[in-house]
């Protein structure tokens, strides 16, 4: 039966079947018998194992995992009351929330990709994001325009990244130390100026916010209409950033240079590429992108700022980057997955109570598994984290 399929196709089919096992038990199908998910999940595991034995490790293990998880979650879903199920799994709010949560992660992850592909580890993404969040609010409030707020965020994130770049490229400091320093610096600087400027009153509620793009024409299409019809402009900007950064990184000479500097700086230097220039540009760009992610949080999503408002999203962005194997669409898929797990944990808070917060740890557990190489290894650029010394 499987003779006609390559191991890769079989594994992909297994993943689809694993997801289907879960979906069968959810609205709108809502199969109530526990053997329905098992019916789809067990072949998924089988397909995965066959793919693994044929040498397709990463996809194969993913299929096995999808099969087991899909069956387990599906059986779990058949045991919950259907009213709870209808509340938790209402697809439109879930998808809308997923996109909203994934946006800052995607910006941070793509920023991190530029930095790490050029050979500079960027632990400071969290700090750059926080910087962007604060200065976007400050700019939007004081200059009276959200676009100028975004500009301020870009500049502030760029400056934070410039510090990281200078210390880790020119001074050849340990990039982890420098990144950690950036995180603390951002926390201190934004906190200090937030208190100094806004004091006890907090940010005024009337600051200009990034507008929502209303596409009334597609409202009638089920699922797609309500989800994509009223997205924030910044979310559309994410999609654009994603495509542009993929093209730049993998289809242009600039991308080739960035990657070569990250893989083998000496060789790149020998053929006349300026390692320092490329690295500076990549790190500063990463700071700007991370800052955009922060700006989305403050003047796009929440419309305010409070101390340490990024609360680890920069680190989830980093995790998405690693989970996505340092590639833009991989990172985006991981960001969507992590965004979905956050959205689900918020929806689950109703039936499960506090236990739902454990879902928020899922991105970190998955990343831990990914770097451990259980489902195919995540391999960083060869020279990332290593300072380069010009001759």
């Amino acid at each position, binding site marked *: 039966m499987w003779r006609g399929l390559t191991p890769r196709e079989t594994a992909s089919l297994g993943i689809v079947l694993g997801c289907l096992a879960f979906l069968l038990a959810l609205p709108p199908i809502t199969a109530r018998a526990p053997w329905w998910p098992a019916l789809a999940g067990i072949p998924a595991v089988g397909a995965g194992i066959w793919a693994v034995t044929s040498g397709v490790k990463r996809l194969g293990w993913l299929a096995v995992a999808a099969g087991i998880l899909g069956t387990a979650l599906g059986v779990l879903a058949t045991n919950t009351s259907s009213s709870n199920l209808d509340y938790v799994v209402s697809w439109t709010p879930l998808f809308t929330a997923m996109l909203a949560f994934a946006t800052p992660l995607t910006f941070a992850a793509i920023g991190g990709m530029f930095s790490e592909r050029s050979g500079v580890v960027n632990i400071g993404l969290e700090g750059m994001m926080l910087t962007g969040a604060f200065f976007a609010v400050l700019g939007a409030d004081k200059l009276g325009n959200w676009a100028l707020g975004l500009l301020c965020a870009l500049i502030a994130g760029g400056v934070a990244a410039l510090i990281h770049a200078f210390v*880790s490229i020119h001074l050849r*400091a*340990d990039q982890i130390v420098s990144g950690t*320093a950036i995180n603390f610096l951002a926390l201190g600087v934004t906190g*200090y100026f937030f208190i100094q400027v806004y004091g006890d009153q907090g940010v005024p509620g009337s600051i200009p916010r990034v507008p929502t793009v209303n596409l009334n024409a597609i409202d009638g299409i089920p699922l797609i209409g309500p989800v994509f019809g009223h997205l924030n402009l910044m979310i559309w900007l994410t999609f654009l950033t994603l495509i542009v950064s993929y093209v730049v990184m993998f289809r242009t000479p600039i991308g080739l240079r960035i990657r070569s500097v990250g893989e083998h700086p*000496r060789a790149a230097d020998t053929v006349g590429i300026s390692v320092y220039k490329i690295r500076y540009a990549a790190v500063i760009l990463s700071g700007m992108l991370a800052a955009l992610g922060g700006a989305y949080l403050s003047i796009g999503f929440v419309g305010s700022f409070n101390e340490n408002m990024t609360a680890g999203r920069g680190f989830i962005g980093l995790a998405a980057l690693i989970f996505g194997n340092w590639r833009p669409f991989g990172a985006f898929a991981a960001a969507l997955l992590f965004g979905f797990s956050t959205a689900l944990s918020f929806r689950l808070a109703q039936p499960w109570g*506090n236990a739902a917060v454990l879902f928020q*740890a899922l991105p970190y557990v998955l990343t831990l598994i990914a770097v451990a190489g259980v489902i195919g290894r995540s391999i960083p650029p060869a020279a990332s984290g290593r300072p380069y010394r010009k001759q």
Partner: protein
Amino acid sequence: MSSEPGGGNGDLDTPPPSEPLGADPTAYAPSVGERLAFYERAGGIVTPVITAVFAFFMGGLVVLATGHNPWKVYQGIFTGSGLNWFFHFGNFSITIPGTDHHVWFWWNTSIQNNAAYNLQQTLLLTTTLILTGLAVAFAFRCGLFNIGGQGQYLIGVITGLWIGTSLPHLARGPHILLAIVVASVCGAVWAAIAGLLKALTGAHEVITTIMLNWIAYWIGSYLFGQGGPLQNSTNASLPVSNTVVDSAKLPVFWGNPVLQGLHIGFFIAIGALVAFWFVLNRTTLGYEVRAVGFNPEAARYGGISVARNYVVAMAISGGFAGLAGVLDMLGYQYRFGVLDVQTSQLGFIGIAVALLGRNKAVGVALSALLFAALLYGTSSRSIDQTVLKPELAGNLTLMIQALVLLFVGADVLIIAVWRWRRRLLPGRLRRTQPAAGAD
């Protein structure tokens, strides 16, 4: 100063044959361990002091730029930290522990003394920071960057509280001992996950420890949260744990036990410093750890199991951090909540403590005291509101900490200038100033 394998020396004027920052013809990328070895040789105490002074100076500039008086602010922090206690001499008395005898003492240890109270608070934080600093420092000596001190600290807090709030019928000694041992072991196991992943699959410990930090964060949020297994049994709407039972509370030796006096955990931290020094410099284990830290390849060639040392070093590091967590709980906090999980940063500050202290026992002790004084001196309980708002002061602490880390990085520049100074000097000058390169 510790000796390196291969008999390095502490003199800048006679650099070893392979100088890390010299004109190396190949693409040079020092490992964490090599970099560390270099720091240890160069500059002695001079560079950390310059680093700290620089950081305080820059912090002062920010204070000045926002219309406050930096001199007064730093004075306020110093007074708030209770360090001024040491400068008030007089005729006082002290009780000999375990007896009613009083003997003359030159400092005022009275509970009513405000400065003494502030100093107790600073030393409480010093206790924690010494241990979280050691957690970073020990791994660093093995060439590993343990960013996971915060997560290991939280695991220590969680398991320590679990033991400390249950078993009310246990005798005091065994109860305390049990809680401390279990929490340290759990912290060690948590950290050893990262060590094991590094040893088995080569997964970078920075990534894995960051992930473990956040997993611990959410586990803590769940356990102490509403309906969580460790939430208190009296008020269901309060996401805070139970209070540690009396039999598990550490004895307080200075100050009022009700108002957070200084507990005997302080001596445990001092003991940990001694143990840290002893293990690294006087045992085979320490020798192997340092050998792996300097050069894993050479260590492997010399017959040392690099993988085993990664796991052991991470476990010992995690043990220190877990110990910090449990001592905080049994010593003075007695309870922990979701909000504490989210705002606690003592594990992260350990990074700055270890790096400023150059991963040496004495250095860690001194920089822990510095950061503890800064932390408590800027807290809302101690700083004079008229000098600087406590919210601002707390952020100033974060900034200074960040600047310390940045300048620790910039250390390379300082040391390089130090070393090249003689070369840059004109020949005649160099001959007339033979000691120019020594510090």
